[in-house]
């Protein structure tokens, strides 16, 4: 085709806005922009008029007022004299807690179920198929309600554990008690607790900070040791003996911190009609966590199965031909390739789990929606502001999760041209 270098002489005509592909996209974009802006202007105009009718504006000062309601589970200090902002923070932490616990447990259960569904064992493979199909095809709300009903209806009351021949008994060597009100589990007690560090509105539990620092530091030290060992191996061909160094690096700091804090395990014991000691986890949290875990794990199992199936047989055969043992084949050949397929849908499952945790409302777990979007909203009547804030917080959580997971995804991605 001959290339036309000179511009048509006719100049610009109005029709070219539609018929000339050079200008058409600009026309379409301007039309779309005008339509969208008109729509937004219409909504905002309505909003302002409605607010004027009601005689109020958009005002977030209610967050500084006294909340006046109690929350059954709080990770940070909170009383009904605290502010609504504080209640929001408590709700946010509760949301993050159940989301975090759910993501961890769902990953473990999901990977196990996905691998087991591929197992050559007929019984196990069929069982896992049934599990996955049943949990995927029934609404999450039903699982939350049913598991909560199991906890509140089918489990014994705390006083059933009393007496010579109690009607109920604790499980796991008398350390965990499932009752119809709470689940009592052993917990760590710090004799030399460092207390709370207050930095303006931010409260930090120093014990927790120390433990997290020890774990993270241990992981980094471990990686440095392994990198050094690899460097020496590549330079000299001999790998230094390192088996004890990672163990020391991983567990040394955390044991030191525990010793420093004077840690001992406190198991729940029955006193009178109730359990004391340990940690009493409310059944709403346990039920919500279990339901979210089992439901999301069914989806993760499918993702894992698809990921492993996506690695062609030739890869494992090639690895065996090279003389790699099955374990090394899995960790060096299959898994890195499968992870590339698994990670992106896994991210969206984590996001789904976090968003689904807003169903906490069904079992009375006070998450972000229960505090800010529930009682605070109803008490202050600031529906618009509360919902805007609620959506914003969820949006930020989602963006943070997908952002971090995308960074990880990029690091394991196939590096192409």
């Amino acid at each position: 085709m001959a290339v036309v270098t000179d511009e048509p002489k006719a100049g610009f005509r109005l029709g070219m806005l539609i018929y000339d592909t050079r200008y058409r996209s600009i026309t379409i974009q301007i039309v779309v922009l005008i339509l969208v802006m008109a729509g937004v202007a219409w909504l905002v105009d309505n909003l302002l008029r409605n607010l004027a009718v009601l005689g109020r504006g958009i005002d977030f000062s209610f967050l500084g007022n006294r909340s006046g309601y109690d929350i059954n589970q709080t990770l940070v200090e909170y009383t009904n004299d605290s502010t609504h902002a504080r209640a929001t923070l408590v709700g946010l932490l509760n949301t993050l807690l159940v989301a975090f616990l759910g993501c961890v447990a769902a990953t473990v259960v999901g990977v196990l179920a996905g691998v087991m569904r591929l197992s050559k064992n007929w019984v196990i493979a069929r069982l896992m198929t049934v599990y996955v199909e049943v949990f995927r095809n029934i609404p999450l709300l039903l699982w939350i309600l049913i598991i909560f009903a199991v906890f509140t209806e089918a489990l014994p009351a705390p006083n059933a554990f009393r007496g010579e021949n109690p009607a109920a008994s604790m499980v796991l060597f008398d350390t965990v008690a499932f009752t119809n009100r709470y689940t009592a589990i052993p917990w760590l007690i710090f004799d030399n607790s460092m207390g709370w560090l207050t930095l303006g509105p931010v409260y930090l539990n120093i014990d927790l900070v120390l433990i997290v620092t020890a774990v993270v530091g241990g992981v980094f030290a471990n990686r440095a040791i392994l990198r050094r060992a690899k460097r020496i191996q590549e330079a000299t061909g001999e790998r230094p003996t390192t088996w004890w160094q990672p163990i020391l690096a991983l567990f040394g700091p955390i044991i030191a911190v525990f010793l420093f804090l004077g840690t001992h395990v406190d198991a729940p014991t029955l006193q009178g009609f109730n359990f004391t000691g340990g940690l009493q986890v409310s059944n709403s949290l346990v039920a919500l966590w279990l339901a979210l875990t089992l439901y999301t794990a069914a989806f993760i199992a499918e993702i894992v199965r698809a990921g492993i199936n996506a690695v062609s047989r030739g890869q494992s055969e090639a690895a065996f031909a090279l003389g790699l043992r099955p374990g090394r084949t899995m960790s060096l050949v299959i898994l890195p390739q499968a992870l590339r397929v698994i990670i992106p849908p896994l991210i969206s499952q984590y996001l789904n789990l976090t968003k689904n945790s807003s169903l906490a409302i069904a079992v009375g777990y006070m998450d972000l929606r229960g505090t800010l979007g529930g009682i605070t909203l109803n008490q202050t009547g600031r529906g618009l502001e509360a919902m805007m804030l609620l959506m914003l917080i969820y949006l930020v959580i989602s963006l943070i999760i997908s952002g971090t997971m995308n960074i990880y995804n990029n690091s394991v991605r196939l590096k192409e041209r």
Partner: protein
Amino acid sequence: MKATSDPFVRREMLAPAAPPITEAGAVKWMRENLFSSPLNVILTVLGIGAVVYLVSHIAPWMLRGVWNAGSLSECRQIIEARYGEGVTGACWALIRERWPQYLFGFYPSELYWRPVLAFVLMLVAIAPVLFDALPRKMLWFALVYPALGFWLLWGGSVWVPVMALAGFGVGYVAAKVVQPLAGTILASIAAVLAPVLWWLFAAGPVAAALESLIPIALQEVRSREFGGFILAFTIGFTGIAFSLPLGVLLALGRQSDMFIVNKLSVGFIEFIRGVPLITLLFTASLLLNYFLPPGTDFDIILRVIIMVVLFAAAYIAEVVRGGLAALPRGQYEAADALGLDYFKAQRLIIMPQALKISIPGIVSTFIGLFKDTTLVVFVGLLDPLKGITDAVRASTDWKGVYWEPYIFVGAIFFIICFSMSRYSMYLENKLKTDHR
């Protein structure tokens, strides 16, 4: 003298010996599939143990169930009389007695034929969409069905849905009239603009005028009376029908080179995907009035449907975008080389392939949407799972019933969602064109 005897020569094959008992039949199968290694033996025993434990605890309870009783206490009496003191069993009589409520909520009972007819017609309408062996003419019915179904469910004047449908006719006529006068592009603008103007300004008065001339109307049913599975079906299937086209449009917007269109699509999709559906439903029920002209109040089910459609559309957009991205670049270039314009290229080359790749994702989004219809209970609608069950449990007869309603509703959801996923596998297989 002759030799004493001929050397032995075998003239026919021996019958093959039977394989050892461990290498044949059920034993071989069990050795290979159940007991191939110590770990597998343990797993098999654990698995069978778990199944036996669950079945032995649940099955007797279910089988002892009573189907004819008026209340929970009556159920318990019957079971104790039949099986002895202290024995428990399921009380399926609840479902038998409250069946209409689970299906129809508080829909007026003398009008039950309407949702039933709407449901049957819905099956007729979606059949040609699902199975292409059926005559293609039935698709026309599928196009008319939304208006018909709306009229059957909510009642009111027949002219309202008819005039809504007429908008499409208006668009067609406008396009036909403008085409010879001003060309294709203005004709397609007219085809969009005319129906919008019709719906905004003309449809209402015309419907009212026709209603006064020829009154054909069904008794009106208010949205608050809806409940149970008709609510789930209404929201679920309307959501499915409308979210797919919207999702495809959003995906095209996100793949577009046009900066503004692209950024608007991305913003919309990421916003919707970033917030839980519950918050959107709450917005629909609590806040939508803030954003509409003062004094307007429109139907709660409609608001919920709009939110569900927007929510599912964002997810479908991402699924379809994956399908679009998976297409080789050559397909787009081939379409360009053939001289197809954007819409023809999309319709004839890109979309058929991209949608085929996205089928599993689209169907699982639909399944998610259908399951999410249970969340409408949080904005005060009576979904079958919690709304109706709570209503049933509030009556003195059925106070204290826990498992039966959940099992029943769960089973129905399972049947519907499971058949959807099986249909998607069937469709994938049917459309598979690669040769493996």
